[in-house]
């Protein structure tokens, strides 16, 4: 019995150390704060981990491109003035990987030691919910450029310093529900496969409730909740195959999304079924023939392959392709519009060549309407702290001969059609039948 106990303690000791090491993250800080007359922006996005490839790196590349172009005065009007208000922009780029606790520490470090004038960043819902109250507490203009969770402005009810220049998950999923209802009126049964964390759970709740409100006769036949980053979906694909729904909804992203499409396609899961990938646009260049034509893709707004033609996009898209040898996907667009929003706000009332104050930036950005490569961005929700934009969905089409993927049957929904009004809880708005929605 004694020896058993020894072994169990030994195993336990090894387990604890192994688990601690796996879960621990590298911490790196640098403190070189200096008032050098430059406008210093902290940019936080995934540079490592599973979210780096699909989201973080395109966003970081976009930040590099925009900052360099702004500093050189190469961005077309209305952003031709160099830097921010004539001051050179200095970017402090940080990795978002490592979890909410680490990010909160890094955020404090950025503000208190590195003395950044503003922070732009955050993709992960968990990080956003942790940073939101810290941003208000430390009083630094903070712009969430991505961050899909709908809870941000529930955590911070009366934001002063916190802004989000992109849309949240409820918009994706109400628009997806409207798109499916319009283009696939015969669908009777639906199923969802979502990553088991706040993003996946909120996405499925929003989609299933919205679709159920639009088409009350639909039936949910299966819900699958694999772990984030699982990579192997054999059992989930079998469960979905056995349930045999007319439509499969997924908010998967990155490698998980691509693996699901690969494994499901090889097993015929998507034959004669409609598939909706709300964040599918980031995979368009990788899918090739692995994803069936007709798969419904979203781009989390008018970004990437859904982006409109305008002077800013005519500059941004080719410049990005030329520098990074790949097309900008939605995270790149969202980062660009966050930086341009900050510039617009800072230059709204500050005297040219003078460092804009925090008050000038936050007052300038609240309620602002400004131009971006994705079109006009209106800061019109949550007391002017949340962006309102249109959102598009379309069907994936791959041409094997040319090796190129395009979108067909694209439909665009105005922000006023798919965003709950201020002061309304998303679920209540959906349950009530989208009162006040303006859909053309």
């Amino acid at each position, binding site marked *: 019995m004694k020896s058993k106990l020894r072994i169990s303690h030994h195993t336990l000791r090894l387990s604890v150390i192994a688990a601690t090491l796996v879960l621990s993250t590298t911490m790196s800080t640098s403190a070189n704060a200096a008032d050098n007359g430059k406008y210093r922006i902290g940019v936080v996005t995934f540079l490592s981990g599973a979210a780096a490839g699909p989201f973080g790196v395109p966003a970081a590349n976009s930040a590099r491109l925009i900052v360099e172009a702004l500093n050189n005065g190469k961005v077309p009007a209305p952003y031709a003035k160099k830097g921010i208000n004539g001051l050179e922009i200095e970017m402090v780029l940080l990795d978002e990987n490592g979890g909410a606790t680490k990010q909160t520490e890094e955020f404090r470090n950025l503000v208190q030691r590195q003395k950044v004038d503003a922070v732009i960043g955050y993709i992960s819902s968990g990080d956003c919910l942790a940073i939101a109250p810290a941003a208000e507490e430390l009083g630094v203009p903070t712009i969430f450029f991505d961050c899909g969770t709908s809870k941000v402005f529930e955590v911070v009810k009366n934001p002063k310093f916190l802004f989000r220049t992109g849309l949240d998950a409820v918009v994706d999923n109400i628009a997806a529900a409207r798109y499916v209802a319009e283009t696939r009126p015969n669908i009777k049964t639906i199923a969802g496969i979502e990553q088991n964390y706040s993003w996946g759970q909120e996405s499925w709740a929003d989609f299933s409730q919205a679709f159920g409100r639009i088409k009350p006769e639909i039936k949910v036949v299966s819900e699958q909740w694999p772990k984030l980053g699982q990579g192997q979906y054999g*059992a989930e694909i079998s469960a979905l195959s056995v349930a045999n729904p007319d439509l499969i909804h997924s908010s998967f992203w990155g490698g998980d999304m*691509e693996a699901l499409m690969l494994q499901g396609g090889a097993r015929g899961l998507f034959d004669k079924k409609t598939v909706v990938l709300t964040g599918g646009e980031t995979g368009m260049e990788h899918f090739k023939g692995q994803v069936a034509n007709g798969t419904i893709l979203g781009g989390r707004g008018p970004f990437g392959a859904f982006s409109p033609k305008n002077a800013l996009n005519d500059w941004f898209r080719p410049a990005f392709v030329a520098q990074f040898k790949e097309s900008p996907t939605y995270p790149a667009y969202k980062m660009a519009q966050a930086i341009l929003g900050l510039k617009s706000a800072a230059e709204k009332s500050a005297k040219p060549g003078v460092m804009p104050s925090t008050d000038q930036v936050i007052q300038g950005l609240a309620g602002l309407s400004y131009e971006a490569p994705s079109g006009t961005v209106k800061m019109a929700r949550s007391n002017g702290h949340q962006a309102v934009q249109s959102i598009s969905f379309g069907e994936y089409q791959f041409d094997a001969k040319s090796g190129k993927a395009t979108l067909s049957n694209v439909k665009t929904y105005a922000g006023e059609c798919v965003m709950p009004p201020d002061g309304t809880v998303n679920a209540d708005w959906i349950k009530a039948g989208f009162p006040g929605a303006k859909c053309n």
Partner: protein
Amino acid sequence: MTTLIAILIDGAIYASWLFLVAAGMTIIYGVMRVLNMAHGSFYAIGAYSAASLVSWYFSSDQGNPYWSLLILPACAIVAGAIIGLFIEQGLLRFLHGRDEILMVIVTYALMLILEDATKLIWGVNPYFAYQPYKLLGQTGFGEHLRFANYDLMLIGIAIVIGLVAWAALNRTNKGRLLRAVIHDREIAIAMGVNVNAMFAATFVIGAILGALAGALTAPAISVSPGIGVEVIVLAFAVIVIGGLGSIGGAAAGALLVGLARSFAVHIAPEIELFVIYGVMFLVLAIRPQGLFGQTLARRI
């Protein structure tokens, strides 16, 4: 009935994958008493090597696509042997016999280095080697349920590897020598066994098995940064359930976890996340040394 078939086959496929991932790790621990935290990196390197070579093979129109099925293990053997030999001879041989906790920290540091090295070599964008996955077609069960034959092939590969490992340990002279090292390293040295060579061979075999798991998985996934870290947690859970250092234990642990997870996905998907660790908790509560682990008194 279809659901029952799905549970059993899904469980067997997942168990095979878990066994492939965990086998190398448990062999290394069994012989060297090194809980190799860098095992996930071997998996990632195998996956990246295979994805690179397979996509090159298909992009350069090299002829018979079935040759790609041989590229996968070939990649794993070459990549695993090189990296395994390099690490064992370049680092671990200087640390033989050190405290197990120290070795966990050393191999954890190795994992961090190898993770960054893979990013330096392959970048952060995903790699795909999907062609072999579809090559073998599907097998249908009932009206809607179909399995990729590639996945079914993994069951066979896992069984073969398990049997070869068992036979090598129990039916060959080298295997008997290895068991002598496992049983008592000092006595084995006294009897003239070249323990350092045994350790080097074991580590290389473990690294090849880790890389093989990655190479065989590559066709079904998007090979991207971080895949090795995910794997190490699962492999660790499986070998702890089975008993650290036991091949049979790894097989039993993989089967238990595979079937439990498959059952959860089909019957109660909301508990899927919990089920692997639930099984681990139950097994360790009843048998703290794992299913096949042996209770040994500590030598003072």
